């Protein structure tokens, strides 16, 4: 994965580019914060969905782009976050932000717990293993009646209103993007990219690749768990099939691939595209999954670097880039 944007030639220190990026993020947060004041519910709904996807995709992109970890188990952490969030809200009456923080912790801990098994070999086994993990958790949830079995859990109190939820998820997306910025614009980025470029040579430089990969996995999982938590809070009723479903994992994967793996803007563009495509196609209920499939095939085939990669190649935008 060429990381054209991240590794574009730099003049001066790493932090100037980073500061610009942080400033843009803060600016975006500041502007979008006031969206609920003038935008209709529909745009808030789409914004909410995009933000949830963005959080997931940022994490996934960090994993794949930095450590070469291709996961099909995102739903494990979404589901975990969803159950943890509703459990905390229902049983303890925890405030949502606190519940989300605990979700993040739970996601990170789960990632750390399963990593010895999943990191044993590189590549394919990790992918297959994450897929199995999600299925295992789903089966566990379906079977264990303490978690509501197939019925799931229903949020007892009404969730906050949409504008409030939107702002929560906006902050979440901001934090996720900020984290990724920190990972790609500070000295951490050097370590991450070294591991991705050449794990062995990186080890010879004193880097502990296992810990670096674990760090990326834990971080991405914590983000996914928070996304799951806020999604559950919005739904108000969750059950294992919806929250641990393969659909989540596939959605994330397609967002990043469509956007452009390892590219800084890939997750954002991918999330926007997937939300927009889903909305556009849902009006053709008979064949929308088939159409989505065809679009996916065409994009993978003809835009190997995703939409962002394609856009950068276009002469005009390419020049602006340079």
């Amino acid at each position, binding site marked *: 994965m060429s990381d054209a*944007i991240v590794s574009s030639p730099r003049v001066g220190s790493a932090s100037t580019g980073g500061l610009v990026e942080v400033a*843009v993020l803060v600016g975006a947060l500041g502007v979008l914060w006031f969206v609920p004041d003038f935008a*209709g*519910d*529909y745009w*808030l*709904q*789409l914004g909410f*969905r995009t933000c949830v996807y963005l959080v997931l995709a940022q994490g996934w992109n960090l994993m794949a782009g930095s450590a070469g970890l291709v996961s099909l188990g995102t739903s494990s952490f979404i589901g975990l976050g969803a159950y943890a969030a509703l459990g905390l809200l229902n049983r303890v009456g925890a405030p949502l932000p606190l519940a989300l923080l605990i979700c993040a912790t739970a996601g990170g801990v789960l990632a750390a717990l399963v990593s010895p098994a999943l990191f044993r070999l590189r590549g394919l086994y990790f992918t297959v293993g994450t897929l199995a993990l999600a299925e295992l958790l789903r*089966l566990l949830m*379906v*079977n264990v*009646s303490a978690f509501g*079995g*197939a*019925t*799931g859990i*229903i949020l007892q109190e*009404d*969730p906050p*209103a*949409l504008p409030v939820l939107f702002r929560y998820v906006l902050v979440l997306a901001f934090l996720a993007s900020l984290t990724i910025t920190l990972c790609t614009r500070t000295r951490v980025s050097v370590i991450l990219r070294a591991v991705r470029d050449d794990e062995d040579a990186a080890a010879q430089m004193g880097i502990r690749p296992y810990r670096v990969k674990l760090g990326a996995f834990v971080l991405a999982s914590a983000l996914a768990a928070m996304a799951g938590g806020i*999604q559950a809070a*919005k*739904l*108000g*009723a*969750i*059950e294992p*099939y*919806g*929250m641990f*479903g393969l*659909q989540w994992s596939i959605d994330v994967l397609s967002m990043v691939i469509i956007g452009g793996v390892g590219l*800084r*803007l890939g997750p*954002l*563009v991918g999330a*926007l*595209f997937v*939300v*927009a495509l*889903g*909305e*556009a196609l*849902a*009006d053709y*209920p*008979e064949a*929308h*999954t088939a159409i989505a499939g065809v679009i996916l095939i065409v994009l993978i085939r003809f835009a190997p670097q995703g*939409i*962002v990669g394609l*856009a*950068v190649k276009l002469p005009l*935008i390419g020049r*602006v*880039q340079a």
Partner: protein
Amino acid sequence: MKHHIGKSLAAAAAATLALSIGVAFADDIVIGASLPLSGPLAGFGSFQQWGYKRAVDQVNRAGGIAINGAKQQVKLIIRDDKTDPNATASNTETLISRDRVVAMLGSCTPALVHAGALVSERAKKPMVTGCDPLEAFKSVRKWNYVWDLFFHEPELAAVPFKAMADLGVKTNKKLAIWHDNGPDGQVIGGKIWPALAKEFGYEVVQNSEFPIDNSQFTSVIAEAKSRGAEVVLVDAITPQAIAIRKQMASAGYMPKVLNIEKGAEPVQFAEALGKLSDGILVGGYWDPAFPYPGAADLAKAFESETKLTSSQHIADSYAAAQVLLDAITAAGSTDSEKINAAIAKTDKSYVVGPVKFDENHTAKLPIVSLQWQSGKAVIIWPKSAKTGDVLFPLP
């Protein structure tokens, strides 16, 4: 600089969205539904889609509904939720916030119905739904805008016991209960049946819960067989119902009475099993033979239009849509509050029988006991609705 790309793409995405909005004419009455048209529950979704559409088409053919005195056509927008509650919720959100529906029709099964209903409830848009057993529906919350017409689990659960008593079937009174861990499975199989068994003098020799998509039932069957249960009550969805029947046969287990709730109801159950479906009992809330207005016609219309065998899901969906359309007519307005108030006042006989909502927003549909006989579902109980004699014991 690079943010330009992101923004231009975002703009392009927004343009795509904008194009897909505004298909409805400005003065249409728009109602929406999110249905499982793909995924494991696609079978239900296709029946519901037909039922909803038929009710709307009939109203439109009759000139539409008078809103503030002017007749308007009704536009029904259906979106596919892929049997994913997340999608049901987002579809409902879109229908309400983008398509500006005045009211919603429900999806199918508690998980999907509730996901959409919670959105409707919060947006204060009325929703009429079927396909969600009433206890499961009530357990979610106190509803203000969502209305459910379907069977009541305790009534459905009682049908096999009442039917066995009335028909005077002779068994050793040893009962095995197998149920999935979905909402209605837990209620019917886990709570109501054991209680009723006691009441009707049966000994529950086995009560097994299994995950809703379990595919192997050999241990469950072997246990029931070894305990000599002659009556087996099952609550499972169709694929599992088929698996159970096949695996019972191939395990050589032949109880005298086999009642499979939920899963044994659609005709695909009988088609998939062929002869093996003979003698299986299932509670039904509708049959073309019901003495309600339009019942026979509905099934005939379905079969002639689709060349498929009808299902009771065409009836509850058709009735739910009619209830909603009648309420809009009664309200004479597209105002949500007025429609909601009109729904509350519903008191009329529909194709599924009389519909009147109680304080929990539920309307119970009357239940009969059906038995599969040579690929046809025959009403064997109660006597008043009977269309054939019971086949006993299970062949």
